[in-house]
């Protein structure tokens, strides 16, 4: 065991980590922005909106994220011309996250009692106002734990975009490994860099969930 390979390449690894971090952040924001209208379409009463949304969500959720990355990587050049690998990878991750976020948002909307909508109607608000001022704020509060789990998932999933050549944390680690051949030290270190933030967030998520269960009186001590 010789961990100097980590300290010697720390700068290079940290540039990879930075790529992983902004991929994660953009993917989360993009997924939520596109996932919310998709969830509304999926929960809509109109078949014209509901069925395509359902088909899109289920297809994306039904195939491996690697498959999706290759799809976008092949598809984008035909649609908009040559794009850098980073763009293709980011678009693929956003598409992937949009489908999962849409299901979370839909569950959040379904968790809101329909009486809220009726009360909104009764006070003369229109559908958009009801969504914006009554349903979505409550839904997002209920969704916080699920969205945080999804954030952990996205952070880990970014590690597969290296297949199209994006130098994220994991790709940086494999590059260092190819040069120095210290796989145990390097991959153990990388595992740790993924593990620490994921564990902190997932523990925190569990705490919020338990607090909520106590508030709703559905918590039973193990």
């Amino acid at each position, binding site marked *: 065991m010789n961990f100097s390979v980590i300290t010697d390449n720390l700068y290079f690894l940290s540039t990879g980590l930075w790529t992983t971090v902004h991929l994660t952040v953009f993917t989360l924001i993009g997924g939520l922005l596109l996932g919310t209208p998709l969830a509304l379409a999926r929960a809509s009463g109109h078949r014209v909106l509901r069925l395509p949304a359902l088909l899109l969500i289920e297809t994306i959720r*039904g195939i*491996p994220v690697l498959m999706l990355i290759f799809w976008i990587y092949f598809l984008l050049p035909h649609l908009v011309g040559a794009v850098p690998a980073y763009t293709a990878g980011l678009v693929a991750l956003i598409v992937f996250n949009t489908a999962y976020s849409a299901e979370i948002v839909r569950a959040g909307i379904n968790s809101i009692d329909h009486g809220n909508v009726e009360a909104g109607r009764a006070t003369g608000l229109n559908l958009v106002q009801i969504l914006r001022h009554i349903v979505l704020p409550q839904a997002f509060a209920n969704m916080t734990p699920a969205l945080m789990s999804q954030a952990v998932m996205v952070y880990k999933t970014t590690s597969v975009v290296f297949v199209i050549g994006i130098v994220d944390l994991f790709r940086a680690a494999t590059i260092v490994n190819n040069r120095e051949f210290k796989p145990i030290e390097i991959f153990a270190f990388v*595992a740790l860099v993924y593990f620490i933030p994921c564990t902190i967030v997932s523990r925190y998520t569990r705490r919020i969930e338990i607090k909520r269960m106590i508030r709703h009186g559905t918590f039973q001590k193990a």
Partner: protein
Amino acid sequence: MNYEFHWPVLWEYRDLLLEGFWITMFLFVTGVLSSLVLGIVFGILGASHLRWARALGEIYVEVFRNTPLVVKMFFLYFGAGFDAYESAIIGLGLHQSAYLAEIFRSGIQAIPRGQFEAGFATGLTRTQVMRRIILPQAGFIVIPPTTTQVLETLKNTSVAMTISIPELTFQTQQIEAYSFRGFEAATAATLAYLAVGGIVGAGAYILEHRLNRKTKSRVTKDMTAMANVTAAA
């Protein structure tokens, strides 16, 4: 978009696609079996009344759930000296079992404590209570989340391509490299994943509803029996 599809390419490369499909199925089945075994063991540990067992279960879940699958596979393949298939199966098993252990733990803990106490009161041992009362009920309620994880396992087999296992996703890349027919190959692979996933999902649905009918009748019978016991006492 002006792309001319050329579907006969799929027939031309049918051997690659079929080989990839069977390797994916092999990884899927072995991955599901190993993760179920590990998941049940660590799920029961995590729900234990013993502090050390709970800690062990919890550490297992956190370690293997909070690291990416591809990192585990690379560690096993390049670091620990396993061959590609061993690394893929062990990696998949460790990764998915952490999610399953968490599901099984919460499934066991979802059964009201009164059932344990009732079991002890009728003179059953801890193992008997677990085997005859808790696990059958917990097993039933975990079917839907377990199905989700089984489907995750199917999708995650594709990560094995990164350590050069020629499974389905890898073969679509091969076909792209040989013929620039990535679209056609990716379409075929996508349909294959969706078909297998659909069959697994439908199977789980049928299983759940069958068991539901059976358990319902059994539970009602048990309830009546229990009511009689209480009345007699």
